[in-house]
């Protein structure tokens, strides 16, 4: 085997199954979009923090940040929305993380739709079960 004897390059992808090709491309785009949006929001939140500094109610020093106890910064969708609207750095960052957490969920939902369009019903059921479990987990009902 001479792995390096062939010039590395992209072999012809035309030989791939066109259905697989299309599904892969769509999934890839959704993941990339989710990740970029999450990163952009997170970066804005971090910049806000550097500009405005720690807000009342948030950890004020590195020592406070590192000695936080589990459950002290409890949050909710409503609290995040209010915080984002008033430019609270921590809530903007939470929104970024939330978008990141939702990205795999969006990917599973998309595959569900794609399998349905392909009339691949075994996989529709599989994706549906995964999606339901994922949504229950996101709501905080199972997992952890």
């Amino acid at each position: 085997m001479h792995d390096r004897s062939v010039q590395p390059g992209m072999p012809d992808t035309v030989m791939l199954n066109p259905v697989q090709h299309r599904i892969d491309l769509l999934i890839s785009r959704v993941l990339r979009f989710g990740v970029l949006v999450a990163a952009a929001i997170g970066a804005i939140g971090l910049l806000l923090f550097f500009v405005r500094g720690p807000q009342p109610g948030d950890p004020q020093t590195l020592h406070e940040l590192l000695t936080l106890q589990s459950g002290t910064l409890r949050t909710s969708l409503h609290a995040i929305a209010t915080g984002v609207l008033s430019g609270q750095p921590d809530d903007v960052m939470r929104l970024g993380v939330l978008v990141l957490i939702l990205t795999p969920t969006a990917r599973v939902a998309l595959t569900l739709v794609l399998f349905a369009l392909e009339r691949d019903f075994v996989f529709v059921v599989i994706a549906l079960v995964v999606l339901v479990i994922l949504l229950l987990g996101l709501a905080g009902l199972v997992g952890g």
Partner: protein
Amino acid sequence: MVGIELFVVGLCLFSFLAGLLGSLIGLGGGILIVPLLTLGFHLDIHLAVGASIVSIIATSSGAAAAYVRDHLTNVRAGIFLELATSTGAVLGALLVPFLPGRALYFLFAAFLLASLGPMARRLGEEVPSGVQPDWLARHLRLGGTYPDRALGRLVTYEVTRVPVGFAMMFVAGLASALLGLGAGALKVLAMDWGMRMPMKVSTATSNFMIGVTAAASAGIYFWRGDVVPLIATPVMLGVLAGSLVGAQLLLRLTNRRVRQLFIPILLVIAVQMLLRGLGVW
């Protein structure tokens, strides 16, 4: 104030490395992030796991975008096996109060150590040959083809022993719920050793799956406030950047090289699990 800023920048740089490594070998980077935060900064373990969950999802989504586009990820096998990991995770969450956590760490460690042998024996293998697809693999059409940039050709592979892989994935789901891990190492083993998939396909598909496993348990940590913005955000940004670079690297690495990278990491995780089982950490 300056302390926090320095911490944030440092954590971001460290997370870059975690994302780079995690995306190459199909793990979430938790094996680097959790020890740094708990041992290095004495952070509460729940908050460290919260950061690790963010790291896992970021590695997974960041690298998977590239792997799926280049057909390295076996999407059908990934979704099918997510059925096993997510039902395993639900069962695990229900069983948490009844199971001894320590014994689980030992079990996990023993399993990883036991898999070192079979892994090492296949160090020289590039693409598994002579794999006969079993009944499930044929009916679910789990086999695949990917263009291998390191070999410069299309690689077509079959999948076999699906029930073995499915059972291992179920255990991986249990472990991730019980121990708060992405259990990426178990997932790679389930596909590489269990189902005889090529190493790169195994790590890329594991990468694809760990995001879903982690997202399922992310809810509880997130709403409880265990995903601390000033810790999670630098981790997310660093890991994302690292995973994008790592993804470009994996496409160019041979299966053999990836396996050489995976084995020492397996050993490190096994030792971590032993230490946690012993209560040292």
